[in-house]
């Protein structure tokens, strides 16, 4: 399995922290601006999205779901334009026509975000077919949660990808349950039983371990490009305790990166999740322990990310609402 270099490790941590600080900004803005929509935050998933997006090459396609912010930000989508879209502003990536659920950035390989459970997995197969027919060594990545496997189209999509041997990576973020209703209800013992029944190799990885995901995704993409086969990765996660059906609750507060080297700062009702399952603190602690990063360099990364988020906020808040006269324009190309 491929291990990130020192520079790659720092870049990986920076992507993860960018995703986290973006979501913290979204929560802050949701409190400040009442017209901001419902949001499904990516907190706790950062290791998966950052590692996967870092492994993609230019031209690769990615299809995401209602929990899309992290994927987009992780692939380098402009956070100001993404936030403006979440706020329904004219300067948003979709000009305010999509909102949080449908952020698209074609230039970054995100043609569409579907907020239908199972909406994007089929589109990703179409992307894979295009990659194959166009004979370029591009890969299409289907990003989805375990709940998608409750939907019938998942089985059609896996079957289609297997029959036609399409270059598709199925990357399932299984954020299981934390005392609430489970996010999926499958009769199969393991999620990977499903793709394997259709002759798609599947493997399970710890979704809170950035380097494990990085290695698994890197190897998978290499194999898909070489052999033109679909593959399935299940990234297992412990759900962030703020994740609720209607509106996220900011249970764990603003992330304090110093907790990575001062675990005594972790207190309160959600200390177990923060200590054991916060992928950012886990990775920062590991990099410091292995001498790949210093505490000061982690703080410097965080300062850089925070400054970018301030710029993003300023851009989004200064962006006007779209012209109401255009509400019905742009239906057809």
């Amino acid at each position, binding site marked *: 399995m491929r291990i990130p270099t020192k520079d790659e490790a720092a870049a990986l941590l920076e992507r993860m922290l960018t995703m986290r600080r973006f979501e913290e900004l979204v929560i802050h803005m949701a409190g400040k601006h009442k017209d901001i929509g419902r949001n499904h935050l990516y907190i706790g998933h950062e290791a998966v999205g950052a590692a996967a997006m870092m492994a993609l090459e230019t031209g690769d396609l990615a299809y995401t779901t209602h929990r899309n912010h992290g994927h987009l930000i992780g692939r380098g989508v402009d956070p100001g334009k993404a936030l403006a879209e979440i706020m329904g502003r004219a300067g948003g990536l979709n000009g305010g026509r999509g909102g949080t659920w449908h952020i698209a*950035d074609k230039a970054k390989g995100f043609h569409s975000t579907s907020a239908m459970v199972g909406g994007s*997995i089929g589109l990703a197969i179409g992307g894979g077919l295009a990659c194959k027919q166009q004979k370029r060594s591009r890969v299409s990545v289907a990003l989805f949660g375990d709940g998608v496997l409750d939907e019938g189209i998942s089985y059609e999509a896996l079957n289609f990808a297997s029959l036609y041997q399409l270059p598709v990576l199925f990357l399932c973020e299984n954020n299981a349950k934390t005392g609430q209703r489970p996010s999926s209800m499958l009769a199969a013992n393991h999620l990977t039983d499903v793709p394997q029944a259709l002759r798609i190799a599947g493997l399970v990885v710890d979704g809170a371990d950035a380097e494990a995901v990085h290695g698994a995704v890197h190897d998978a993409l290499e194999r898909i490009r070489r052999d033109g086969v679909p593959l399935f990765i299940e990234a297992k996660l412990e759900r962030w305790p703020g994740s609720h059906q209607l509106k996220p609750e900011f249970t764990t507060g603003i992330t304090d990166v110093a907790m990575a080297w001062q675990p005594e700062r972790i207190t309160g009702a959600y200390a177990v999740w923060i200590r054991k399952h916060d992928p950012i603190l886990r990775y920062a602690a590991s990099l410091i322990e292995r001498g790949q990063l210093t505490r000061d360099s982690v703080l410097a990364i965080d300062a850089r990310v925070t400054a970018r988020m301030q710029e993003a906020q300023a851009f989004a808040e200064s962006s006007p609402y779209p012209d109401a006269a255009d509400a019905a324009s742009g239906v057809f190309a």
Partner: protein
Amino acid sequence: MPTKSFAQALVDALAYSLAGDAAVTIIGRGLTGHGPEADAERALYDKYADRILDPPTSEGVMASVGTGAAMAGLRPFVHFGTAAFAFEAVNQIVNEAGNAHYMSGGQVTAPVIYHLFHGIRGGGGPQHSHSPQAMYANAAGLQILLPASPADMQGLLRTAFKSNNPTLLFSHTKLLGVTGAVPEGDFAIPLGVAEVKRKGKDITIVATSLMVHEALRAAATLSAENIEAEVVDPRTAVPLDRAGICESVRRTGRLVVVDEANLTCSIASEIAASVAEQAFASLKAPILRVARPDAPVAFSPPLEKAVTPSADKIVAAVRKVMRG
């Protein structure tokens, strides 16, 4: 002009499209049905095997593969067969394909074409006799083609392949074997332009798909009664040539609209409403719609016949409108 069947016109439009654009990809088999025209598609498979997929019976993923591949640069033609089969894929067609351009703020286009066999075929029963075009017209973002002749099939489909929007192409099962004159070579017909299929001064009959032929038969009968009906075929439901339809009504002052779909919220309803809004002052009598009752289509032949719009029913409606 040479003569060819509706099915052959479909195949020829696909052949021109496959030859002219390497991005054109067909997903589906049985493009020309399973009846006498079934073999018409074979020439395509012999020549373009690498661009024609014979998919599993998975309408949901067929529809989304079409949309996803279209967003990524292909020009897929997805064949569902019987229109009702695509009910399995409504989310993919309406919520993904239809929304794609608007929802992305114009960043992406989804130039996919979905082909559906619609209509009362004879013995189809409640599940295989649907004409669901109005259901899709009620969702924004989908072009809807309703060709009634081989020439319209070929010309409209060629335009759809050059368009950047998702398109639903509805072929009436009973039209597949219908023959007609078709211009030589490759040609295109613009969307949203109605064609006057028969000139007349006394009443306008607007009809789509197979019903155009019933309307023409009705017009021949009415002519013997000194009623000259103008038969207008919008050819596409989205975009709909409201101006062209109203222009005819302004000349004749009377309107009957024919549609094989259920009466309620049909394309005929939309046409009647549009004329009432835009050409009310020209109307000398109330508009009548000839459509199917709001009931499933029964299997039993006399029951099926009872609900199927026909030339006789159109003639009766026209006589009623002429009486005022």
